[in-house]
């Protein structure tokens, strides 16, 4: 099972193991990572599931789609080159071990 390492704004780290095919947002929600709000439940409609993806593995996820791109321009915390919406990041063996930084705020 691929693992995700969530790094919260205060530096605490939590490892979550997921079935391949699970989105990073679902993994965070299901395990109570509170910094990922995910208002719309993964419908790419709200921009409250913003994260920063470890650069090393960034290219292994599907590229940013057009709705996501538009939403990333509205995130509460600054958009950086490694910004993604976590509901659009699907975990696989390819992305096993990825570090996901949770921003300070989503609203």
């Amino acid at each position, binding site marked *: 099972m691929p693992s995700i390492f969530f790094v919260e704004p205060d530096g605490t780290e939590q490892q979550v193991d997921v079935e391949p095919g699970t989105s990073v947002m679902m993994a965070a929600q299901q395990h109570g990572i509170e910094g990922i709000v995910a*208002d719309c*439940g993964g419908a790419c409609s709200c921009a409250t599931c913003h994260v920063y993806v470890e650069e090393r593995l960034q290219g292994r996820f599907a590229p940013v789609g057009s*709705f996501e791109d538009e939403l990333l321009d509205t995130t509460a915390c600054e958009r950086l080159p490694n910004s993604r919406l976590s509901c659009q990041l699907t975990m696989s063996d390819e992305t096993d071990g990825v570090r996901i930084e949770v921003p300070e705020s989503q609203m």
Partner: protein
Amino acid sequence: MSGVVIVGACQAGMQTAASLREHGYSEAITLIGEEQHLPYQRPPLSKGFVTGRTTVDQLALRVESFYTERDIEVITGDRIVEIDRSARSAVGHLGRRYPFEHLVLTTGSHPRPFPGPGARLRNVLTLRSVEDAVAIATSFNGVEDVVVLGGGFIGLELAATAAALGKTVTLVEATAGLMGRAVSPRVADFFLRQHRARGVDVRLNSSVSEIIEGTPGEAGGVLLTTGESIPASLIVVGIGAVPTTDLGVDLGLGMGLGILVDEFAQTTQPNVLAAGDCAQHRDLAGHSRVLTSVQNAIDQATVAARTITGDLSRPYDAVPWFWSDQYDLKLQMAGLAQDHDEVVLRGDPEAGGFSLLYLRDGRLVWAESVSKPGEHVVARRLISAGSAVDPNLLADTTVRMQDAVIENSEMASTVE
């Protein structure tokens, strides 16, 4: 007795339990649901789930360890049939008793059944639960012709899915427009054209008088009040949701269409609260209404949790929002379809994406966006902040929407 019993274990019930712990509540929490599943998301059921894009496991709102770590007892598969007021306990269908100090009703809503003959034939389906969605997905495999009753969000999403799967789809809607009063006539008309362009035969101002039997026991089509019949081997009924309020009625709670609650999610009886699809509240425009949306379930449940912990500092005043995905189009609404004195069109409907922005006294009060999720998010913020905006700048797609703000209202709400 101490502790909270929450009846109905889905979006609002889960949120009440989670928010109680987040706000430091330390007594027992029991979350009871009649379904066999841990609380899960319903929106994908009419969208990606039917086509297999989303699996059952991916629907779960939280995994089991989330509840155990927070000492939230989740009971699945028990239906509460009675609230014993004198003993202050909820009674399950097998007689198990759950004592409480506070009771929260998050019993949701259920589909309105087809009121005419034929409603019980096989292949006449409604959509609320995972099981319903599996039944629809299974039926889709074997049928060519589908009739959808009702041009609301769920009916339209299912029509879009069926059309995308290559089915012959007829959608019958009793009123003159799609999606009722939830959207403007302009947006309803835009979606009407989209569905027709993709081959869905949309019949407005049409009513089904009867579902006709085909092979014995099975639906074979529908009969319209005009006398015309439309053959189909699958009939999906999406004619609205009815709040599930039987426990509230038994308790003698004040009732409208739903269980009446105030801005703190309190019913008309002490220590009994309600939230989500089963509750009816007075909205920001002063209208008493039932809101059936994820936003309302989450925000009202959060208020209910705060009320139980004694925090009455933040009444329910969240700006409503909603979305619906049909084909590759994303429809989103923010705010309330209330009185306005100006409408701004931003973008070009023919070019794929646009927003309609409704102003009153120079402030944004309602926004509809089609395939412009970024504009929807900014609109939500502008509506909550009560910002005054320049309509000319709002209409100008070369200017960011947030740059159309003139000044921030002194009465800016603290929400979000």
